[in-house]
């Protein structure tokens, strides 16, 4: 193999509290389309921002044509021929296409006519239909993206990085973009694109780098892989099966929670959830499988009341609770363990005891003459610390100082007590070590045994299979089907998660 055009060697990036990238190494050849595949938060954008000079790596090297280089700012990156198109475009809406393209690249008196001609020529070269005098604010998103691309081309880019470029495009626009990518690379240029869409990867990439939790988990040629393998790599196959031995198979047929034809319309007009109907029985664990970012969080938040659906109804024990907000739903006995505990589930700068109080600060049980009954709260917290074997010296320990697993146990302890009827778990074991994972699984099964209803959202298939009584698959905000867990195989579920319909799956893998 020839010397790589660009190479990243052992890059690590630490933000104050998280590891964004750890020992990331890969290279890109001239004329190659490289896809950077991974779930949200896998560290794809961070590693590209390092290459583009927006972030500085804490460890590791960057190489161009085998020589070590330093990139401290996007300006330096551009000088090396690297351009990056961010997910959110950096265009000035009140300026024309020409103004935007030459922005930052002109000095002195501007010869508008010359630039306009130049840009026109460049646009024609790639078959972009663009009027250099149009104002950005009047252009469709897909066209704006072309302006961004032209801007990069104008700067004589050899390596074009695109962050989720098709997220905002219609299928036709996306098709055009793919066409451009092929043309562009045919001339010896390279493209890296960041995505979590499997189909897109398979249609355009030459090579695929799969990232998960800040690390590289696969560096594969497109021709040598398939969507199933990629989805496995992306989701992770650390399978920690929990035994189902101690669990009674009988499910109470009594319905606890009903989600009836719920649709959630986002501001952009794209529905995050489309016509979802699910039923949750007493003493049942309903697993929600799917690649992350397909509406899981929205589904959880609709159940716990953080967002209200655009259409549809939610019933708890037959009572319509659609309009009830979070606080009312907490009082009704719905617990929620969010996927991102540091932003949604707990307050890192407060003590464990204060975190236990988070959802019940209005409740009289923790108050004495208007003040917080600290003694009672501390006693309760200490009991929970012991019950859940949370490694903490006292209830006053600040949450931030705990390990991820112990933080999760704090949230778990609180939500299990709050959720007297229903508990929603969103990715309850993500990022935890094996011991903690096992503990969380046991807790979930215990709560099921108590007759509580559990909605378990997870991208870890093993977890879904080990715990769920029934499994629903979510893809692009739609339920692909609800199955008894015995009916499904890993392969079948993988295809459903990749967006294949049940019919197709049956003929393919059934």
């Amino acid at each position: 193999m020839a010397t790589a055009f660009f190479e990243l060697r052992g890059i690590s990036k630490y933000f104050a509290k998280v590891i964004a990238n750890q020992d990331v190494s890969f290279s890109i050849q001239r004329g190659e389309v490289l896809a950077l595949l991974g779930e949200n938060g896998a560290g794809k954008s961070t590693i590209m921002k390092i290459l583009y000079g927006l972030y500085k790596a804490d460890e590791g090297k960057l190489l161009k044509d085998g020589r070590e280089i330093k990139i401290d700012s996007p300006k330096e990156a551009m000088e090396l021929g690297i351009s990056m198109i961010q997910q959110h475009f950096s265009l000035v809406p009140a300026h024309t296409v020409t103004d935007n393209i030459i922005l930052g690249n002109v000095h002195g008196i501007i010869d508008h006519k010359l630039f306009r001609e130049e840009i026109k020529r460049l646009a024609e070269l790639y078959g972009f239909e663009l009027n250099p005098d149009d104002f950005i604010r009047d252009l469709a998103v897909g066209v704006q993206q072309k302006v961004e691309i032209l801007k990069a081309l104008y700067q004589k880019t050899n390596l074009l990085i695109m962050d989720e470029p098709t997220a905002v495009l219609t299928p036709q626009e996306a098709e055009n973009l793919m066409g451009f990518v092929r043309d562009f690379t045919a001339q010896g240029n390279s493209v890296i694109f960041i995505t979590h869409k499997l189909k897109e990867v398979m249609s355009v990439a030459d090579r695929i780098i799969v990232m998960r939790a800040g690390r590289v988990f696969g560096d594969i040629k497109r021709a040598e892989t398939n969507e199933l393998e990629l989805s496995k790599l992306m989701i992770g196959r650390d399978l920690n099966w929990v035994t189902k031995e101690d669990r009674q198979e009988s499910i109470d047929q009594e319905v606890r929670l009903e989600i009836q034809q719920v649709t959630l319309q986002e501001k952009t007009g794209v529905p995050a959830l489309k016509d979802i109907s699910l039923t949750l029985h007493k003493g049942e664990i309903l697993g929600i499988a799917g690649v992350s970012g397909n509406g899981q969080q929205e589904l959880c938040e609709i159940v716990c009341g953080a967002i209200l659906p655009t259409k549809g109804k939610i019933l708890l024990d037959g009572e319509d609770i659609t309009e009830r907000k979070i606080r009312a739903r907490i009082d009704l006995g719905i617990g929620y363990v969010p996927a991102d505990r540091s932003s949604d589930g707990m307050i890192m700068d407060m003590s464990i005891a204060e975190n236990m109080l988070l959802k019940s600060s209005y409740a009289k049980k923790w108050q004495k003459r208007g003040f917080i009954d600290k003694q009672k709260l501390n006693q309760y917290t200490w009991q929970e610390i012991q019950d859940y074997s949370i490694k903490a010296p006292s209830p006053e320990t600040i949450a931030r100082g705990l390990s991820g697993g112990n933080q999760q146990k704090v949230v778990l302890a609180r939500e299990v007590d709050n959720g007297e009827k229903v508990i929603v778990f969103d990715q309850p074991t993500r990022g935890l070590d094996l011991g903690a994972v096992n503990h969380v699984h046991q807790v979930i099964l215990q709560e099921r045994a108590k007759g509580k209803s559990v909605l378990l959202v997870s991208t870890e298939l093993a977890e879904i299979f080990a715990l769920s009584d029934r499994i629903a698959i979510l893809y692009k905000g739609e339920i692909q089907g609800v199955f008894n867990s015995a009916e499904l195989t890993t392969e079948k579920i993988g295809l459903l998660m990749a967006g294949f319909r049940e019919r197709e799956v049956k003929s393919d893998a059934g």
Partner: protein
Amino acid sequence: MQAKLRDLLITNILAIVLGIVASGLMLLFLGKNPVSAYSVLITSVVRDSYTFADIFVKATPLMFTALAFAFTYKANLYNIGAQGQFYIGAVIAAASSLWLQNILPGGLVLMITLLLTMVGGGLWGAFIGFVKARYNSNEFLVSMMSTYVALAIMNYLLRTFLIETKAEYPQTDALAASVWLPRIIPGTRLHIGFVLAVLACVGVWVLLYKTPLGYRIRAVGYNAGAAEMSGINAKKLYILAFFISGALAGAAGFTEVNGVQHMLVQGFNPDLGAAGIGIAILANGNPIGIIFAAILFGALKVGGTIMGQMSGIPSSIIELMQGFVMVFVILSYFVRTWLENNREKRKLQKAVAK
């Protein structure tokens, strides 16, 4: 936690020292010996009880305005309009005292006036919280601009309804002695307002750390997302926090008008709000720390007056010193964050290396 406290102490002391050194350099430019100037300053501050007590007189309104900033700061909101809320409080204090002093007994007038100033300042502040909650406006800008509106209202009233009987200067008549805040130490200007301010500091501390309401305010401040997710209505708290904050700043108007000035003069105490922010940051938002930080600033203020009396040294040198101390204190906040981040990063790196 240990390291955090250490950072806090070291950076703050360093900030104060740097502020003093930097303003000392200014003295050098004037050809004065800063060391001797400073030693004269210190000896004259402790020379007589009147001057010494004045430190606490000056510290009183500063505690209130610092509390006002610190309170919203705990909810991760920035109320930099304490100056305006203070003016509203001062106007109400003067108006209410002048109106009631001949009708009701002095003690009662004082109580009613305190209540009115707090409600007035509170409502003035609550407006900022309201537009923040309702229209998601930037509370930083609204609170800042509201100060100018308050100032304009005060000037307008001092030219019209509240102007002295002689109608000569934009100021009110003097308040009757019956509605002055009682002195605590005879022969000094130290009035009971100082005790009120210390009580307010303690009260705010109790409110923030011992009650469910204070807990919720802090929860929203640390992580509004998680608080909302837990059924806490952050928007309601924004309004409430700004009301309490404004009420505290308004109380400063009461202690200044009824305790020190005994009248309302146009444009008095124009830097209380800004100094309050510096004090709150110096104390890292801790209400108890504010007591000490306010006294430090009070000492600087008194020192400034004395320096002005020394030959050849402009009294503005002390404002310069205050300015320097404040700038360094604010910078130290960023230094602390930087230190803290680096520490966390090293911890993480070490954990990974294992």
